[in-house]
């Protein structure tokens, strides 16, 4: 696969921005900031879910040059709360059988989840399945909105490993929102801080601070 870079140029939405930054292929950038600062809004804008202006480029794909569904599939946003609309888990996958056993095992699940009822899933199970569903879509980039917020410590470690492995082996740029400074120090090479008025501050290397 082509090693893509996520390049955001003068991204504006609502009355926020402009945001300009680059995330290199295989690089994990942590994004922290107070609740309500607009971190999720930034991820939504990058996924083109809200009206916005500015240039967004992932590898050689220009957001405005492809249909929006193609762009969203390519940038892979994991929302803080996942959505499920059909009866069983398997119904939400185009082809459940094609899912790698290893990926299910990596989030502590096995093939039997295919027939599980959505109404009986716990928050943590939904979150882990949402990650499997997202990766199964093979996005070229990952935008993660508190991906481990509802998980216990053992699951957190496994999910971090899975996502980092995807980032490194696929060369996918990754933007990881978290409230946990220790987690960001573990996973990211670079840190952005979003302050209350929505400005984005590049605070440099994650390991310098912790």
């Amino acid at each position, binding site marked *: 696969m082509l090693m893509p870079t996520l390049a955001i140029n003068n991204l504006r939405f609502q009355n926020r921005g402009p945001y300009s930054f680059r995330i290199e292929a295989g690089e994990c950038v942590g994004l922290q900031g107070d609740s309500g600062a607009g971190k999720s809004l930034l991820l939504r804008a990058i996924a*083109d*879910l809200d009206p916005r202006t500015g240039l967004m480029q992932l590898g050689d794909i220009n957001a405005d040059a492809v249909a*929006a*569904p*193609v762009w*969203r599939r390519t940038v892979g946003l994991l*929302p803080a709360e*996942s*959505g*499920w609309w059909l009866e069983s888990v398997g119904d939400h996958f185009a082809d459940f059988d094609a899912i790698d056993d290893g990926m299910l095992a990596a989030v502590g699940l096995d093939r039997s989840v295919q027939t599980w009822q959505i109404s009986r899933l716990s928050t943590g199970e939904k979150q882990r399945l949402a990650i499997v569903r997202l990766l199964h879509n093979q996005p070229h980039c990952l935008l993660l909105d508190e991906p481990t917020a509802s998980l216990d410590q053992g699951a957190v470690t496994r999910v971090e490993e899975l996502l980092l492995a995807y980032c490194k082996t696929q060369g996918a740029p990754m933007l990881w929102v978290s409230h946990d400074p220790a987690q960001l120090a573990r996973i990211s090479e670079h840190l952005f801080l979003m302050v209350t008025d929505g400005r984005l501050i590049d605070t440099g290397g994650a390991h310098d601070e912790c």
Partner: protein
Amino acid sequence: MNVKPLSPVDLALAASLLVLLGLFSWRLQLGLGRQLAIAAARTTVQLLLIGQILRLLFAHVHIGYMLLISMVMLAAAGREVVERQQRSIRGLHGWLIGTGSMFLSSFSVTFLALFVIIGNVPWYTPQYAIPLLGMLLGNTMSGVALGMDRMTETLWQQRQVIEQRLLLGQTAGQAVREIRRQSIRAGMMPIINSMATAGLVSLPGMMTGQILGGSSPLDAVHYQILIMFLICAGTGLGTIVAILGVERKLFDARHRLRLDVLSPVRDS
């Protein structure tokens, strides 16, 4: 054969039933009294008025008058559709979707019935045209209003799921497929149900009126069947067009769910 005319005293007797209902509403704190009074007053005034207008129209048959009154009926129906939405689409567009879909369906079906099926000379003979258009518009209005309300309300409540589907790469059309279907069904259910029970549970109003007016029951039944089919076709077409219109308005060219086109929820 003539209908026994009703005196104002007869109508006042019927109105006393509503007063009784109003008393219940007050006693049980249903808060319906005001609405009931306004609706009853509107029914009385509007029907008396249309009675006079129809008398004039029957005496002076002219296509200009017919166009005028049908436009007034359409505009009133369009306003009513907007009024019945919990969250209507802001501005002229919301009005246009409802009104446009009713115009397309009711007017073309009425025209077809008058011109091809009934075949009076002239085709716009008011005695046929106005009741037909009225029944079609009234039923289409209910279907369109129900369908649009269901659609906007469900999109609002399920925005998280819809955006999740968009995020996974579905198009707007794929993401709302089930909601679109439910909304069209919601709009069409009343007429489908009333076709299914016509004659068994209830005698439809028009047929009852014709029989009261002295027509033979068989003639009345034939007309009622015709009307049921026309209403069903009109309601179905109108609802489908309206729902597609809502869908177009609530998603933009980049397949984004644009709930900002909805006005805030209204108090009912």
